[in-house]
């Protein structure tokens, strides 16, 4: 007769694989019987708790998904919103264009002055570019021309 169940023997009992000797001991030993019952009960309650928790999580996840789907569906109003925002943009563009036109009438001289100075600058650049000899070579060119 064994004294008390070892951890492995208790595990065997929990797994339903106890030997005949172990099973007989459990029947006659109140301490081992109580320990086994307590462990089985704990494992059973653990299983139930995990199942309930999983069910709750699944329901919450699905509810969350539905909410997410619903919120994803709301942007169906987006065309209206985008039209509104695009009309805002158009209004701003028109306003800026009107301001520009008015400004061109109010300050015409500044514009013509600018055009004039631009033209002078361009002519200067043209003259520099169209020179046959670079400015740094000009003294040499003079010497070459003067020699004959």
């Amino acid at each position, binding site marked *: 007769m064994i004294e008390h169940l070892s951890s492995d023997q208790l595990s065997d009992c929990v797994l339903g694989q106890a030997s005949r000797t172990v099973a007989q001991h459990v029947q006659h030993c109140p301490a081992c019987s109580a320990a086994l019952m*307590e*462990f089985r009960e*704990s*494992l059973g*309650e*653990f299983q139930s708790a995990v*199942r309930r*928790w*999983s069910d709750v999580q699944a329901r919450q996840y699905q509810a969350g998904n539905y909410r997410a789907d619903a919120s994803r569906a709301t942007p169906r109003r987006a065309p209206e919103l985008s039209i509104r925002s695009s009309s805002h943009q158009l209004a701003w563009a028109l306003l800026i264009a009107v301001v520009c036109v008015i400004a061109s009438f109010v300050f015409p001289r500044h514009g013509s002055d600018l055009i004039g100075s631009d033209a002078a600058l361009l002519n200067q650049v043209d003259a520099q570019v169209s020179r046959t000899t670079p400015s740094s070579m000009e003294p040499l060119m003079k010497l070459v021309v003067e020699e004959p």
Partner: protein
Amino acid sequence: MQLSVTPELATSELAPSQLESYVGPDVAALTRDFEALVQLYRPKVFRFALASLRDVDAAETVTQDCFLRAYQARDRFRQDCSIHTWLMQIAVNLIRDHIRNRRFQFWRRTRLTAKPVDLAGHTIADRAKSPEAQALLRERVAAIWTAADRLPQKQRTVFLLRFVEDLDLLEIAVATGMKLGTAKTHLHRALRTVREGIGERL
């Protein structure tokens, strides 16, 4: 990612109860009634994934991947185990891959520092028990939950398959790809750790 089921699969011909009684279903029925199969086994696969990963999003992803792979591999189902065991086999592999990938992801720290799950809060009060006995039982459940989280991955998988999914040793061996003796050893070690966990806590 949402699991998409083709229209011809959506028409179920077998009731879930009939499908569950299948031990070795023929592949044609499996194909025809895939929608019913999803309906029946989805909660079980999700539960196992959730208990293993403790992350609802990850569990949902694993569940969807599991049925997607099952659908893709339905022609290769050898009918040498039940559908439940076959699906658990796929889920075990997906969970293992997920855990392996997560080791390299920085947000794992976030998970580890996240608020722990209060599993004891999901125990049902038994009126036949005294409040002290109920509190003690809740403590034990919490201790098992904590101990299960600390188990090495293989032991945890085996433990959850046995004590959450009610698979027997042979089914566990098939689902995990272990030898029967190896599965039994892992289960014994897991049980010992869990018992020690209960002892430490109480």
